[in-house]
């Protein structure tokens, strides 16, 4: 195996930028928590893109699994154990189990119908979090807990009060998750998913049980989404039902599309743009919602391939 610099250039650029982020983010007029949020949202969007961009299945209800991860982590720290590690494990399991159960109900559906049903199922979790006041804190959110310092053997990493350490913690998990997803997409199984996206009928007539593969892809996607959710909860030391609300799902979809659904790093680029833009616009004008809406419309009408899609096309020409 030789190291192909040309091929690796995108990866190198992405990782150099992410690893040096704490050095330049404040000079760029931003702040480290926003950088952490970009990485968290990017992980969520890349998880969604596993299903959306690489399996071609349109879920509009992924916020539910994001929120389940977040609540799983928050509830663990609040009630079970003061351990960041277990919080993440519980959150991820919560998302995975829910996805496994709901999967069989929806894998038979396609297109807008699939989208609508995923939204509606997502709302179940929203209402549970919203109404089960005694446990989840209801609309007020789940409070009175904090992410805990990380103990690895005799060493302790202070990710609790040190924002930069927490950033690197999130980045490490992001790297691991992204590596697993990339590895899966390059495997024979991953290629069957791409085959389903490209042509479901052809794939079925290759002897693939399409529904089973979509279910697996759905579960993988939701599991990583839940992982992103746990990090989101840890970032804010807070969870509320809005993390589960269906409009949050729309945000993830637009992030994927904006960055470029067909590019591996597209969702990361999309997350960087979206998070920054929303932060910027909402400081600038109380009518930021209109601008966010306009961004949606503009992306759909003029940049359906997303930033990386456009760049790639131009490069090909």
């Amino acid at each position: 195996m030789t190291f192909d610099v040309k091929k690796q250039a995108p990866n190198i650029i992405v990782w150099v930028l992410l690893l040096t982020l704490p050095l330049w983010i404040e000079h760029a007029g931003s702040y480290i928590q926003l950088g952490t949020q970009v990485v968290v949202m990017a992980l969520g969007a890349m998880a969604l893109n596993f299903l959306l961009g690489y399996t071609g299945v349109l879920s509009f209800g992924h916020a539910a699994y994001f929120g389940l991860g977040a609540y799983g982590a928050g509830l663990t720290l609040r009630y079970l154990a003061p351990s960041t590690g277990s919080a993440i494990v519980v959150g991820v399991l919560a998302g995975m189990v829910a996805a496994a159960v709901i999967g069989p109900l929806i894998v038979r559906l396609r297109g807008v119908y699939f989208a609508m049903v995923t939204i509606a199922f997502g709302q179940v979790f929203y209402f549970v979090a919203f109404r089960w006041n005694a446990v989840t804190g209801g609309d007020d959110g789940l409070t009175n807990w904090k992410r805990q310092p990380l103990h690895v053997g005799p060493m302790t990493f202070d990710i609790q009060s040190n924002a930069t350490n927490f950033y690197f913690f999130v980045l490490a998990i992001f790297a691991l998750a992204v590596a697993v997803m990339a590895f899966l997409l390059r495997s024979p199984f991953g290629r069957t998913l791409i085959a389903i996206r490209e042509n479901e009928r052809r794939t079925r007539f290759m002897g693939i049980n399409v529904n089973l593969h979509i279910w697996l892809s759905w579960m993988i996607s939701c599991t990583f989404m839940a992982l992103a959710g746990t990090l989101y909860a840890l970032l804010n030391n807070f969870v509320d039902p809005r993390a589960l609300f269906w409009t949050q799902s729309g945000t993830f979809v637009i992030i994927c599309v904006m960055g470029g659904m067909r590019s591996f790093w597209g969702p990361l680029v999309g997350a960087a743009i979206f998070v920054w833009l929303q932060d910027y616009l909402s400081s600038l004008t109380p009518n930021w919602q209109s601008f966010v809406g306009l961004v949606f419309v503009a992306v759909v009408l003029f940049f359906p391939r997303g930033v990386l899609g456009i760049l790639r096309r131009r490069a090909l020409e």
Partner: protein
Amino acid sequence: MSFLNIDNVSKHFGSLVAVDGVSMKVEKGECRAVIGPNGAGKTTFFNLITGMLPPTKGSVSLDGQNLAGVDPSQRVKLGMARTFQITEIFPELTVRENIRIPVEIAAGLRLKPWMPAGMAGQIRDRVEQLLDEGGLTRIADRFAGELSHGDQRACEIMMALALKPRLLLLDEPTAGMGDDETHAIARLIKRIHRESHMTIVLIEHDMRVVFNLADRITVLAEGRPLAEGTPAEITANEKVQAAYLGDAA
């Protein structure tokens, strides 16, 4: 017992009877053509064989195994591969990847989240072999969606072959093609048939192709079997001439 045994199948859509009591026996290694005028129910008949539609009546069996209730993807595992009237390929992938996916599936890797040690070379060789057989090597790195109609069709046939089927079903393989392309595809099918003794069932409109390729011909008209026989017998059949060849000629 014949290799493919279709016994008295019918398909009703509401009050419309698309296929009405058709039986057909295809022997191992045979190349069978199904012909008939437009609306004769050929494609529906095909869909009954491949399991895309459940028959209203009758049964289909392959190599002695009854296929009732077996869904399309499982029929593929039993050795049935097909192409479609409108080419079904992976347009945004390269031709090589189009072939590679069914090769991996045939190697039993459909659910493998990693490439097993030692398989990579084997898979690569098989892909190159299929590309070569299909005459696709020169365009292996182009996106399938950009290819000419004939090349796409060749790609689709090789994708079906990559699955190592025992029965190959081709739905109008030369539909909408010019003379050169038609000729090339016919040659490809002929070579596959000759070299691998593959059992083939094809629907075809172009009579030159049919008489060139088929060992036997089944004629359908208005969903019913009209005649069956060797090309020579069919040419001589008056019913067929009246119903079909007459207005086709």
